[in-house]
């Protein structure tokens, strides 16, 4: 909320400097987010007096004024197009070199052959109003010294106050002044609310029938005749502009002025357009239409509340009036509404119609029961004064009796315990009374009677906050935590941090990518973008971030693409992030392990890896090569080693369910000892590479993090370190080309017995010596016998390996 200090000061005396007042408000919970000074965008605009006005010799509509700007430059000849200049007026004069709002610079110029040494300014040119027709007259007497900078005279300091949603009562000049008065001990001065009433009774012109009392607890109205609805006076326009409201006409400006002054939204109807002045407050009918004053036709339904006449809706309650009853320059009779509408209904309607306004916002936050009537009288007084209208006698009000004030009980001891400060009943009374609470009872149980505007105070916790604010948050002594701690639980995020550090140690850079991706990302990655398992947003910010990613693939490719774009083609990245999917029906085994709020949407942590470009960074003499799948497998193996999990085995993916973004002949699964896949990896499909604007053969992997961590044994027993030399043996094995080498390693490892320590593939040969369709592999095995020189047991183990390879894989051994 924008708060011009001169306006605020009408209701409370504040002798603090703006900065100090801002700090005080902030420390009391009314955070001041900025301090702005109107007039700081004027330079060299000063007050001058019109000494002489003559016709421009060469133009019928222009004038030649002699203006005295005193110390700022004496008498100046200035050409002027406005028709309201008179000798003796005090006017704003922009000197040569002056800068006006919008960075408009004034230069010495020749207008129709006459030199103009500056410019006289209208309100609109200064940002002080909407009036563009005449020079902004500042006065006629000696009240301002000539040459005074204009900012000193009509400049204004405006605080931008962030009033919290629960403090609708402070959303006005008086509301904020009330807070300041409570904390500074100053007095609150309310504006006058006296109405000179005419003889004709209001209820002869207006009647109100409330058909939905649950949505409209209060409706007060007044009637005015003989309205002359011209522009509002300059002082009112200036204040409205300072708070960000465009002046329209006297009647409309008064409703806006009083809303900002007191916090009560109001609406004025052209009484001539409301047959017999009969107003009905009811729910809208489904399919009913209303053209609002912004000339947009709105389609309504039963969840909305309208103000209606006999024929149909004439306004959206608490939000915006209808065009048919809009007050204009021709309006002579006016009905003025000051009401309380149900906040959630106003909010819901405004949101669905996209019509949030200053008025609807105040209704949403709630209006105190004593406000509508006071505000109505205040506005009536202003309308009478400014438009010469006569106000009808009396008020039409459905509920003139003030409701019982809310009573909240509290325990002094309990509040002391909650706040950690020592309180007594007397102290509580002293703290709450300035805020308008009447406090009784004691010594421990107190009852506070809540002032009608404080709709937010309903429980002892709310009172505790008021006590803390009044006591001063800055005066609470901070305490260090005491020793009572909760029982130990392991930290679910810790293993993720461990994985991050291991991967960084292995030379990969961490990236954090968006969980929300776009349809195009999926399509570029060869992924079905219409799958029922995708979680889509109802209100995405853009199509690029409309779907929760079902796979890390697009995120990883995007990471590479981003680096390639900046000429950094050698990329090794990892991302520890979640993937998301939807599955109606009972959860699968994997889904039971995944995280979920129980809505059929699941999320699960994955580790994504991607590498592209050069392997070894160029070093003199070293061969340059592109990273390949073996490099990636090496990283995956090393991650397992570092975690202490058994290394995985790799096998080709079945055609069914293959990851579509990978090369079909170069994509595989990461499997545990039982053969269950918990990850996948491979070379990116060449068409996907192309679609992402990449080149070469990038490779990626994704691994189910939960499963991986489950492979880490919870306890680790050491094998005895024996006093015996290990024994090394090599095996040469010839296999059919169709047999995966992974099978060779798996069978060899499984059959070699517990003494096997290392198994390494060190040569692969294809060629004429062994014939077509066959491959020769050389394996190095290292055994650790329990006793030195126990060659016999090693030979036995080797024979078992040979036997298994022959039996299971049809291997030929050499």
């Amino acid at each position, binding site marked *: 909320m924008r708060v011009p200090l001169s306006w605020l000061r009408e209701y409370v005396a504040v002798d603090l400097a703006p900065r100090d007042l801002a700090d005080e408000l902030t420390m*009391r919970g009314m955070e001041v987010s900025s301090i702005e000074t109107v007039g700081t965008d004027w330079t060299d605009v000063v007050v001058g007096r019109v000494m002489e006005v003559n016709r421009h010799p060469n133009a019928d509509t222009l004038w030649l004024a002699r203006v005295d700007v005193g110390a700022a430059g004496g008498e100046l000849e200035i050409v002027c197009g406005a028709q309201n200049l008179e000798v003796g007026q005090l006017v704003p004069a922009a000197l040569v070199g002056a800068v006006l709002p919008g960075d408009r610079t004034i230069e010495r110029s020749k207008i129709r052959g006459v030199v103009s040494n500056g410019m006289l300014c209208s309100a609109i040119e200064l940002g002080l109003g909407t009036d563009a027709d005449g020079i902004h007259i500042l006065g006629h007497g000696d009240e301002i010294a000539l040459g005074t900078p204009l900012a000193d005279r009509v400049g204004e300091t405006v605080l931008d106050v962030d009033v919290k949603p629960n403090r609708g009562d402070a959303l006005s000049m008086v509301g904020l002044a009330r807070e300041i008065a409570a904390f500074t001990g100053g007095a609150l001065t309310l504006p006058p609310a006296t109405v000179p009433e005419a003889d004709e009774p209001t209820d002869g012109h207006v009647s109100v029938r409330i058909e939905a009392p649950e949505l409209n607890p209060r409706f007060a109205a007044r009637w005015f005749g003989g309205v002359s609805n011209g522009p509002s006076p300059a002082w009112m326009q200036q204040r409205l502009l300072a708070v960000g409201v465009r002046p329209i006409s006297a009647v409309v400006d008064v409703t806006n002025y009083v809303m900002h002054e007191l916090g009560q939204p109001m609406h004025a109807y052209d009484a001539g357009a409301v047959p017999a002045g009969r107003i009905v407050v009811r729910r809208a009918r489904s399919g009913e239409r209303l053209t609002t004053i912004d000339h947009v036709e709105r389609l309504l339904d039963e969840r909305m509340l309208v103000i209606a006449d006999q024929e149909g809706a004439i306004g959206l309650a608490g939000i915006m009036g209808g065009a048919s009853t809009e007050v204009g320059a021709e309006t002579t009779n006016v009905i003025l509404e000051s009401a309380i509408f149900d906040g959630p209904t106003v909010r819901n309607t405004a949101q669905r119609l996209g019509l949030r306004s200053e008025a609807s916002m105040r209704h949403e936050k709630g209006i105190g029961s004593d406000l509508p009537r006071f505000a109505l009288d205040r506005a009536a007084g202003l309308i009478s004064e400014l438009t010469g209208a006569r106000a009808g006698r009396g008020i039409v009000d459905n509920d003139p009796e003030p409701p019982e004030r809310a009573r909240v009980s509290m325990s002094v001891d309990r509040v002391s315990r*909650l706040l*950690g400060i020592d309180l007594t009943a007397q102290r509580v009374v002293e703290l709450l009374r300035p805020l308008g609470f009447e406090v009784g009872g004691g010594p421990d149980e107190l009852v506070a009677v809540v002032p009608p505007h404080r709709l937010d105070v309903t429980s002892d916790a709310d009172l505790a906050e008021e006590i*803390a604010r009044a006591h001063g948050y800055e005066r609470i002594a901070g305490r260090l935590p005491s020793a009572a701690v909760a029982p130990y639980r392991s930290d679910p995020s810790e293993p993720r941090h461990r994985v991050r550090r291991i991967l*960084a*140690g292995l030379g990969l850079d*961490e990236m954090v990518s*968006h969980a929300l991706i776009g349809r195009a990302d999926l399509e570029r990655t060869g992924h079905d973008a219409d799958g029922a398992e995708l979680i889509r947003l109802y209100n995405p910010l853009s199509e690029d971030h409309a779907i929760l990613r079902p796979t890390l693939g697009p995120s990883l490719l995007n990471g590479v693409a981003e680096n390639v774009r900046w000429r950094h083609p050698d990329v090794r990245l990892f991302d520890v992030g979640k993937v998301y999917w939807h599955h109606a029906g009972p959860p699968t085994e994997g889904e039971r392990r995944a995280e979920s709020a129980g809505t059929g949407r699941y999320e699960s942590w994955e580790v994504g890896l991607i590498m592209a470009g050069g392997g070894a960074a160029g070093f003199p003499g070293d061969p340059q090569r592109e990273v390949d799948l073996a490099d990636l497998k090496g990283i995956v193996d090393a991650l397992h080693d570092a975690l202490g999990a058994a290394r995985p085995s790799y096998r080709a993916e079945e055609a069914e369910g293959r990851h579509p973004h990978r090369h079909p002949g170069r994509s595989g699964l990461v499997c545990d000892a039982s053969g269950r896949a918990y990850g996948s990896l491979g070379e990116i499909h060449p068409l996907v590479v192309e679609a992402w604007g990449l080149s070469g053969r990038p490779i990626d992997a994704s691994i189910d993090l939960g499963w991986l961590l489950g492979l880490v044994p919870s306890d680790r027993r050491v094998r005895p370190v024996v006093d015996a030399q290990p024994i090394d043996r090599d095996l040469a094995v010839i296999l059919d080309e169709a047999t995966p080498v992974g099978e060779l390693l798996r069978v060899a490892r499984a059959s070699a017995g517990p003494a096997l320590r290392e198994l390494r593939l060190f040569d692969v040969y294809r060629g004429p010596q062994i014939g077509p369709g066959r491959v020769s592999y050389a394996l190095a095995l290292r055994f650790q016998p329990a006793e030195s020189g126990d060659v016999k047991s090693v030979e036995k183990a080797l024979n078992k390996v040979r036997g298994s390879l022959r039996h299971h894989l049809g291997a030929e051994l050499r």
Partner: protein
Amino acid sequence: MTISDDLEHIGAEAREALAAAADADAVDRLRHELLGRSGTLTALLRQLGTVPAGERPAIGQRANEVRRELESAIGDRLEELRRGDVERRLASEAIDMSAPGRPVQVGHLHPVQTLMRDLREILHAFGFEVFEGPEVETEEYNFELLNIPPDHPARDLVDTLYVAEPGSVEAGRPEPARDGTILRTHTSPVQVRAMQALEAPIRVLTPGRCFRYEAVDASHAFEFFQVEGLVIDRHTSLADLKGMLEEIARALYGRDVRTRFRPGYYPFTEPSVAFDIGCLVCGGVGCPACKRSGWMTILGAGMVHPTVLRDGGFDPAEFQGYAFGMGPDRMTMLRHGIGDIRLFFSADARFATQFAEGR
């Protein structure tokens, strides 16, 4: 000439030849000529039998002496030559020691994740344990159970990303999911989940990713991280909260950091708190970074609202506690002087590789 003279002669000649031997091979040849099966000294020793018996012991003894001396001299000479060889080789092998090393690629950790780990470690020291919950949440947990009923103005504080009803987007008529599924706008729903899952005393941290309908610019992102803390027991007060927040600020920004503890507003806390530190950019004088106030808000907090306590299964007459929430993205920006939050979601190596494990 006597055997005795021959003996001394052979010894003297051998010593000269040894000194002149240029390499190990020459020394070996010499050893063979002297001490081999048909070497000159060996032959001489064989003639000892011809020496009269009376002289034999003295000459024999001398002969053995000469033999030992020569063997030792040969050994010394070999060692001398080997050392010379090594020195020559070393001298020939000198390289340019200013040449760079062969690069070993070291990876870099994401600064926001690192800050979250640091927060975890700081708060761990005060007994906080991590508790996690889903990112795809329900309106019930994200709002209702946190004292934010539907159509409540507090919902203005956040703009929510709603999950669509399955099939509705594909059919071209998007509607919000009927079961109220949304992307969580804060990690506060995890507080309710923690209260429902755990017994008092509770002291948990809830780090995680959050989502908001927010137009992206240098300081706003639609995905971001939060770390919240929650304490529930019978006596923890607003004063304890203040002490804790001051300690967190000191741990993160140094013992001398200036702090400000002031009223704030959150629907799920009462009283609510906003917590500021002296501006890290200008030191408190006022600058554009702190909107000329001299302060930067790093935390929101408050005493858990009685309604939220009840929703979490605790009787507010008996239990109380506080909650606080931090924005690690913003804190990381402050820590490293990062001007644009969008960098956190880029994989750009020019940014990512600036962060090291040692900070």
